[in-house]
């Protein structure tokens, strides 16, 4: 039952995301492309690109897109797919919203609790690993083409290096994505 699976999966994703959208990518990827095969690895990378070019949090955007696509691929009607999109987005925020309300009512601010500080000191370091894993998992033939002296592979490496360097220099991701896309259109049309 795809609706129940979507709800449960995105409930889990919401509950175990710490440290923002990028930290979420590894988690969504393992659930959505590996455990359930709702999206192909290529489709997942494409939606990440689209997420960075459209407004909104990456977590919401990916949940909405995945919900829509998963329900449609399961053979349902488009209006049911829209329900799937809303269900997945609702599920991803449900538990965090409840927890946040409880936290505001009872804490209002993070007190200097030693246990919490120690946990986050390790958790933040692990989240860096999570983000690195997301990048490593996307280093595939789906994203780069076959590793040979092919045009696609060489151009992909060049784009990767250029975007990596320019992004460190704080050039906006939108420009970098648009430029890479235009380069793709030009290079692969010749």
């Amino acid at each position, binding site marked *: 039952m795809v609706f129940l699976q979507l709800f449960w999966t995105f409930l889990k994703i919401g509950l175990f995301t710490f440290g923002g959208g990028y930290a979420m990518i590894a988690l969504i990827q393992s659930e959505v492309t590996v455990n359930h095969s709702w999206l192909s690895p290529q489709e997942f990378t494409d939606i990440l690109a689209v997420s960075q070019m459209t*407004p909104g949090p990456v977590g919401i955007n990916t949940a909405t897109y995945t919900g829509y696509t998963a329900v449609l691929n399961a053979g349902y009607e488009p209006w049911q797919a829209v329900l799937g999109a809303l269900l997945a987005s609702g599920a991803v925020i449900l538990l965090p*919203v409840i*927890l946040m309300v409880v936290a505001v009512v009872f804490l209002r601010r993070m007190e200097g609790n030693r246990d919490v500080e120690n946990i986050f000191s390790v958790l933040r370091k692990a989240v860096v690993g999570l983000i690195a*894993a997301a990048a490593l998992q996307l280093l595939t033939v789906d994203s780069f083409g076959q590793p040979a002296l092919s045009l696609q592979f060489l151009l992909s490496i060049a784009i990767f290096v250029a975007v990596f360097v320019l992004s*460190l220099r704080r050039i906006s991701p939108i420009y970098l994505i648009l430029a890479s896309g235009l380069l793709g259109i030009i290079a692969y049309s010749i």
Partner: protein
Amino acid sequence: MVKYCDLFYSFLKIGTFTIGGGYAMIPLMEQELVDKRQWMSRQEFLDQLALSQSMPGVLAVNMATGLGYRLRGLRGSIAAIAGNIVMPILFILTLAVLFRFFRSNVIVERFFMGVRPAVVALIAAPVFRLAQSAKVTWSTCWIPILAALLIWLLDVSPILVILAAVILGFAYGRIKKQ
């Protein structure tokens, strides 16, 4: 008293015009709520930011929940969350519908062939900066490296890695104290 519709409208603006995820929204939220509308003090905003970062979930939605609750209780939360996510959801739904028709288009396919390696680079690039702000040193760099390798090579679920990090941090703090 802050009106629900003002709260909704403020978060609608922030949600509609911020590209680049939750972290890009934080300075806009601060500007709108603290400087422009003067609904809360900077200290209260920063308290909420610290709280939002310590809780699971989507950062922007956590912020909307907490800020909305501080201003107008539970309904305030709902107004802020709705404002924050309604446009992004509509955008993505429209794209998801259109994408099914355009994906096989040869121009779109070439565009994404160029974009895919860029996306990987955009995710990889902040890793070292984040490592710095998470205070990763030579003696602790095994934590992110081990986490990345477990997920990447052994297909360990990121959920288990998160749980292990929580337990490790808790245990380490308790042992250190003794």
